[in-house]
Structures are given as structure tokens and as C-alpha cells.
């Protein structure tokens, strides 16, 4: 066996864990609570677009399931000029 390879080998389990966490966060949002998340996304979009122009593509609403609590993550990108006008 190549000794150097043996000792320098990187563990693969941490990578597996991180990849799974990222993937499942997305899949849970897409599959698990699809109706609720889609509805929330629509209403949040409508509420915000009353006050400023936003790109509907730049809005992400995701739900993360946890043991005790679930978190709703709303991520909205506001265009530079709109943000300046509002300020």
C-alpha cells in the first residue's frame, strides 16, 4: 500500500454530511410543504411589490424542518436603485 496516500487520505463522511444537508434543505422546501411555501411566496411578493419593484426570480422562500422547530427562510434581493430610492 502507498503509505503516503494512506496517511494523507481525506475523510469522506464530512463531505457527505454537508452535501446532504444542503440538498435536503432544498428538497424539503420543494416537496414537503410545497403548497404552503408557494402560497407564502406569492403573498410575500405581492405585499412587497406594493412598495417597491422587485424581480420575482430573486425571491426565495424555503422551509427547513427541525426536530423541535421549523424555520422559514425568506431571501429577497432588492435592486440597487430601488434600495437607494427608499433610503
Amino acid at each position, binding site marked *: 500500500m502507498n503509505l503516503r496516500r494512506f496517511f494523507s487520505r481525506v475523510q469522506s463522511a464530512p463531505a457527505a454530511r454537508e452535501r446532504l444537508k444542503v440538498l435536503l434543505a432544498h*428538497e424539503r422546501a420543494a*416537496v*414537503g410543504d410545497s403548497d404552503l411555501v408557494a402560497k407564502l411566496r406569492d403573498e410575500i411578493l405581492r405585499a412587497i411589490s406594493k412598495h417597491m419593484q422587485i424581480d420575482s426570480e430573486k425571491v426565495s422562500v424555503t422551509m427547513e424542518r427541525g426536530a423541535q422547530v421549523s424555520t422559514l427562510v425568506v431571501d429577497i434581493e432588492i435592486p440597487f436603485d430601488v434600495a437607494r430610492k427608499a433610503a
Partner: protein
Amino acid sequence: MGKVIVVTSGKGGVGKTTSSAALGAALAKGGEKVVVVDFDVGLRNLDLVMGAERRVVYDLVNVIQGEAKLTQALIRDKRVETLYLLPASQTRDKDNLTAEGVEKVIGALKSVFDWVICDSPAGIERGATLAMRHADIAIVVTNPEVSSVRDSDRIIGLLDSKTLRAEQGEHMEKHLLLTRYDPVRAERGDMLKVDDVLEILSIPLLGIIPESMDVLRASNLGSPVTLADDRSAPSIAYFEAARRLQGENLPVMVPGEKRGFFGKIFGRKAA
């Protein structure tokens, strides 16, 4: 009234049938009246794992279609007299399983047995959703490996939305059974750790079954591993999981963690 358990996973080949047979036999050995029901219509295997493949006359589909009585289709185990098997059909396809038919059969079984264990087919189609439909408790069988964990996550989502309990707004009890756990690979850091899987899936742990030749040997012989050799490592793990199912509060041992210095050295070499 007996308890209905579904043994499910999404992914195939993770150990649903092995675990159904092993847990069923473990519970029955303790004097409980147990029936293990094969829902894998068209690809039945529970009969083979339990060594009853030559005794199948009628099956689940025959009972649902009214071609046989439930008592005619049930096969009593030759080793443990409180253990029964309800085989799946090998020739029909799974469209023959109707929601009403399954409901009737499960209802009849749980009025007689203490435990009705439904061995789900892989996938998320009709067979799998019908197997979980009437469950009180779900056992999610997972291997410490990315594709199995992902599929288990999907199945947990279905258990929380498509079962009768979920639809009635009740809590669906779910347990994780981690199978094919390899302590040597875990120690090298090349296998998802127990804590990783628990954190990702966030359901309570029912047991950890070590990867073992004993499981393969038992299925070669047509015996649930808990009947083939009740002192092998996987057997002990299944017996403990069965006790936890019955409500006992037993700590879960992670295989390999109590090995000493020499164990570690020799364990590595064995890989």
C-alpha cells in the same frame, strides 16, 4: 387492538425485509402474537427470508379479491408458534391492492395479533403508500450512506402527509433503524456517523444493526437472523430494538465504540 408497524425506506436493498423478519421473530419469541405482512406484490421475498417459500398457497391479493379467507393465507412459523406470515402475490401486479381491501385486512389482523408488521416495497408508489397507510408506528430503515438518507427523508415526508394518522392530524410515530453499519468504515471517517444521520433526519433512533455475515447466512438458511443465532451481533441489536418498540428505555450502543486499543489495530487490518 394490536399495533400496526410499517417497515419502510424508499430505497431498495437497505434491509427492510431482513428487519421485518428479524423484529417480527424477536417480538414473537417474547411471547407476543405477531404477523409479518409482505406488501411487495410481484417481488415477494419475505417468504424466502423466513423460510416459508414452499408453504405459500394463498396470498394477500387472494384475500383482498375474496378468493381466499385470511386464515387460509396466513402461514404459521415452524419455529416460533406465535409468529405468522402473510405473503404477497408473486404473479399479480400491485394494482390488485385496493385501499379498501388493505384496510379490511389490516383491520382484521390487528384485532387478532399484538403486532402487525407491514414490510413495504421500495419506492414511493402505490405499494409503499398502501403499506404505510394504516400504520401506528413507522420504522424507517436507513443505511449510513447519502442516497439512502435522502430517500429516507422523502419517506418521512410521506409518512407525515399520506398516512391515515397524518391526515387525521395525529402524530405519526417514526423511528430510525440504522442498518449495515460498519464500525471500521465509521472509524476511518468514510461513513456517515450515527449523529450525522440522526441530525439530518431528526427522528428518534430505534437501533443500529452492524453489517454482518450473520445476516446473509441467516437469509441463506431461510431464517430471520434473530432465530438463526440469537447471540450474533445483529441479533442482539434486533432484540434490543424490539424491546425499545415495546416501550423499554434501553440506551443504544454504537457498534465498535467500546473496542479497546488492540481491537482498533486488528479491526483496521481486517478491512
